[in-house]
């Protein structure tokens, strides 16, 4: 296939113009060196393996067990990562690439995992005990306070009572009091009590339920704990109340216990005697301190372990991912009948043949295999994948094309022109050299910090901008250029290239606001004359200019697209497409819109007053009529008649011959094919696949004809609608300049007019934000999208098929990117 690319040209093949010539190769790899071979090929990254076992499910394949093992290891690594993240240990990029065996790693990972889980379980248990003890201590302290205060009050009451008895019965003393008190003391009721902690938000409900369940035969005391307490069960910090509930009777106790459980209130044993309480407090405090040291020791041990993992994590991770991908690839190979070899098939660029062979040899040597793997090139009718060798500059442009559709194998690649025309058309809509400089600074920022930014993880929008930094760079350069042409710097014109060509008609300049200025000197040499800015006739002039410019640029680009279709037809040796597609298309487009472009230029050069709309419309409506005052050059009528005739002929020329010729070719080939050997040259295949997209076998004439009919109609209508579509260049450029002049005049100049520093500063801030937000961000986006559309639709539909598929080699370097994306 390489011969086709290089054959019949005076020039060397252009980079990027055609995708790399590919070949289908077959590798026969001895079983013992298979792993090593695939690993080396993954390092090389220039071979796309075909799945030869597509009928088998993942579990039926040869290396399913190994993949499962790798998956298990990956799970462990994820577990470590999670643990490290929780502990705040970050994996360090280790550069030591020691030769570690995957089996050793597996054992090590298992060991570490069990150690870590055990450590976690122990730590959790200890932590729980610790939290319980903390709560217990709190209960002891708070509840102790209740009892203490209650007791002191009781003693006080007792004392008061006694003193009253001593002073003798006064008249005021209630009669029953004595009996009551004496009755109480004579028949003491044994009250039970429970102490514990209840979450604060539940405490009200807790109290109410307790009261209702026991019909009020309960006494509850609560105190808030100031600091939130860690709950031993859930491990979360919650605000809690210490409660003590007094009750009478076993039945009530059972009820209270149930309620406590329902409310998640933890109960703790509590002694009534003060001495015992103090003793317990000191005991608990001792235990707490002990536990604390144990937990701390455990934690530091765990951090040590995690840090240890962290130093090797990246290496292990890489190795496990590589191993997994190797086995995935091995699963795609088919087992030889003798079960001693594996057979691989895959696509590889022709230029990589030597590298692949070299990798095979090295693998055979390193794995001490008796025989080296065998490489042979297969011939196939299948269409190879598309592979462009891009660099950091061209890859983003190729990305723009690929997101529309991946080029068919070896099809002319629009990227070679898109690299320039895309930023250029963008700049036609974004012409302002002030804004261009801002954009340039942003692009330069990304380009200068390229190394640093490419290594770190960016958020979506920044990553997108960063990826397109070279597109933005060229876009900004072209915007500066078109800004100079439009003579706009934040919508302010400058007389950079000499004085204006226009002067007043006389010294008094009375007519300048009614009839206007007059052109006295030579035309302004570069770009739009600065005098136009702010005049009443600015818009009519710029509209006419930009509209005509859009059509001229559009016709030029569409012609470029048609020329690309010629390159394709020549490359695939498809003369039918040259004669019955390319030539009539050129004639049709140029006899109508090429002619319009010519008229525009003639009109500018001669300064004629002719109405071009009128000329174009009446060229169709009544071509034989005299043009009258709309005549631009002598013999225009006859030229128009000829052009109209040519356009009229071009349509059936496009439509009719091709299907018939294809039919004839097919019949001729079909007649041959029954006796001749199968054609093994690629060229005939290419021709065939270009002729009828429905492949080999049946030739449906009606289908081909309808296809051609659609194609013709699309082109004829498209010539009109696509030309009209280029007017978006005018519309967006107009919108941009109008918006920027509004911001300049209505914000900045108005603020300036107040002669007040504060207003000026506010105006300046508003101006900056409007410029950045609306003009630099939104306008950039919209101009970008419109430029994108002009390339995808108006330009590429002239030649681009875009039905290929990307070359996705098995490569370890791509593996990393994929994984990071996930």
């Amino acid at each position, binding site marked *: 296939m390489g011969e086709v690319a290089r054959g019949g040209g005076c020039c060397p093949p252009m980079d990027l113009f055609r995708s790399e010539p590919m070949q289908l190769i077959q590798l026969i790899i001895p079983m013992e060196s298979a792993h090593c071979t695939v690993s080396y090929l993954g390092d090389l990254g220039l071979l796309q393996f075909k799945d030869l076992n597509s009928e088998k499910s993942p579990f039926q394949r040869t290396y399913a067990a190994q993949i499962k093992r790798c998956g298990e290891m990956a799970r462990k690594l994820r577990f470590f990562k999670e643990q490290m993240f929780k502990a705040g240990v970050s994996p360090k990029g280790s550069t030591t690439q020691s030769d570690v065996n995957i089996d050793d790693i597996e054992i090590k990972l298992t060991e570490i995992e069990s150690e870590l889980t055990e450590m976690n379980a122990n730590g959790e248990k200890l932590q729980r005990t610790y939290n319980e003890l903390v709560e217990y201590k709190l209960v002891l302290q708070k509840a102790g306070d209740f009892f203490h205060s209650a007791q002191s009050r009781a003693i006080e009451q007792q004392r008061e009572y006694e003193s009253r008895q001593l002073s003798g019965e006064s008249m005021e003393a209630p009669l029953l009091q004595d009996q009551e008190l004496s009755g109480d003391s004579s028949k003491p009721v044994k009250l039970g009590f429970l102490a514990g902690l209840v979450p604060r938000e539940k405490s009200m409900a807790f109290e109410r339920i307790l009261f209702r369940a026991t019909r009020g035969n309960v006494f509850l005391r609560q105190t808030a704990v100031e600091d939130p307490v860690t709950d031993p069960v859930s491990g979360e910090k919650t605000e809690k109340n210490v409660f003590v509930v007094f009750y009478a009777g076993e039945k009530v106790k059972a009820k209270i216990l149930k309620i406590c459980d329902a409310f998640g209130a933890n109960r703790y044993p509590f002694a009534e005697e003060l001495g015992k309480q103090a003793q317990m407090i000191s005991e608990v405090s001792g235990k707490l301190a002990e536990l604390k040291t144990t937990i701390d020791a455990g934690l530091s041990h765990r951090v040590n372990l995690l840090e240890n993992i962290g130093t090797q994590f990246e290496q292990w991770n890489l190795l496990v991912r590589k191993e997994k991908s190797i086995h995935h690839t091995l699963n795609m190979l088919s087992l030889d009948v003798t079960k001693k070899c594996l057979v691989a098939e895959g696509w590889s660029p022709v230029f990589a043949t030597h590298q692949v062979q070299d990798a095979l040899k090295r693998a055979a040597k390193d794995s001490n295999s008796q025989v080296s793997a065998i490489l042979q090139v297969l011939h196939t009718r299948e269409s190879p994948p598309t592979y462009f060798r891009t660099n950091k500059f061209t890859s983003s442009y190729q990305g723009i094309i690929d997101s529309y559709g991946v080029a068919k194998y070896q099809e002319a690649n629009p990227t070679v022109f898109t690299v320039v025309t895309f930023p250029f058309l963008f700049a036609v809509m974004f012409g302002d050299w002030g804004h261009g400089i801002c954009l340039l600074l942003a692009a330069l920022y990304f380009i200068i910090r390229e190394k640093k930014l490419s290594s770190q993880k960016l958020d979506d929008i920044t990553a997108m901008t960063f990826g397109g930094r070279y597109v933005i760079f060229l876009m900004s350069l072209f915007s500066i250029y078109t800004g100079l042409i439009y003579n706009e710097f934040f919508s302010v014109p400058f007389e950079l290239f000499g004085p204006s060509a226009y002067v007043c008609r006389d010294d008094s300049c009375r007519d300048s606001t009614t009839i206007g200025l007059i052109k006295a000197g030579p035309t302004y040499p570069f770009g739009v004359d600065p005098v136009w800015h702010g005049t009443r*006739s600015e818009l009519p002039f710029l509209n006419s200019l930009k509209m005509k410019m859009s059509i001229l640029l559009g016709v030029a680009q569409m012609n470029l697209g048609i020329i690309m279709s010629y390159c394709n037809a020549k490359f695939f040796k498809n003369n039918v497409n040259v004669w019955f597609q390319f030539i009539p298309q050129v004639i049709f487009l140029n006899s109508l819109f090429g002619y319009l472009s010519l008229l525009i230029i003639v009109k500018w050069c001669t300064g004629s007053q002719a109405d071009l709309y009128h000329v174009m419309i009446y060229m169709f409506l009544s071509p034989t009529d005299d043009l009258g005052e709309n005549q631009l050059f002598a013999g225009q009528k006859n030229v128009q008649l000829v052009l109209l005739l040519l356009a009229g002929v071009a349509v059936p020329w496009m439509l009719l011959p091709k299907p018939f010729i294809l039919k004839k070719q097919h019949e001729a080939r079909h007649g041959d094919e029954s006796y001749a050997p199968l054609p093994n040259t690629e060229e005939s295949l290419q021709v065939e696949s270009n002729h009828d997209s429905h492949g080999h076998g049946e030739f449906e004439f009606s289908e081909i004809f309808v296809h051609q009919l659609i194609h013709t109609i699309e082109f004829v209508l498209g010539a009109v609608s696509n030309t009209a579509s280029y007017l978006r260049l005018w519309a967006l450029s107009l919108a941009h300049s109008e918006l920027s002049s509004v911001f300049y005049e209505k914000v900045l100049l108005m603020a300036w007019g107040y002669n007040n520093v504060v207003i000026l500063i506010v105006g300046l801030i508003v101006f900056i934000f409007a410029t950045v937000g609306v003009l630099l961000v939104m306008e950039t986006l919209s101009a970008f999208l419109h430029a994108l559309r002009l390339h995808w639709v108006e330009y590429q539909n002239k030649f681009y098929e875009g039905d290929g598929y990307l070359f996705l080699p098995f490569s370890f370097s791509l593996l990393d990117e994929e994984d990071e994306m996930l």
Partner: protein
Amino acid sequence: MGFVVTSLIFLLIGIIACLSTRICFNKGPSANLFHLTLVLTSTICCWMMWAIVYLAQMNPLIVPILSDGE
């Protein structure tokens, strides 16, 4: 400066740009052809843009009419 002179300047700039890319980024014939295409396309685009604007102002049908405020 007339139309032809400036066009020649564009041509000159284009040739200089082609030569300098050839000298600065000589990376084999295929890459050089690609670079040449890029430089030529951008020169032609820039020239077209300039030429269109220049031609449009050569024989003006509309003249600038100053705003009343001025």
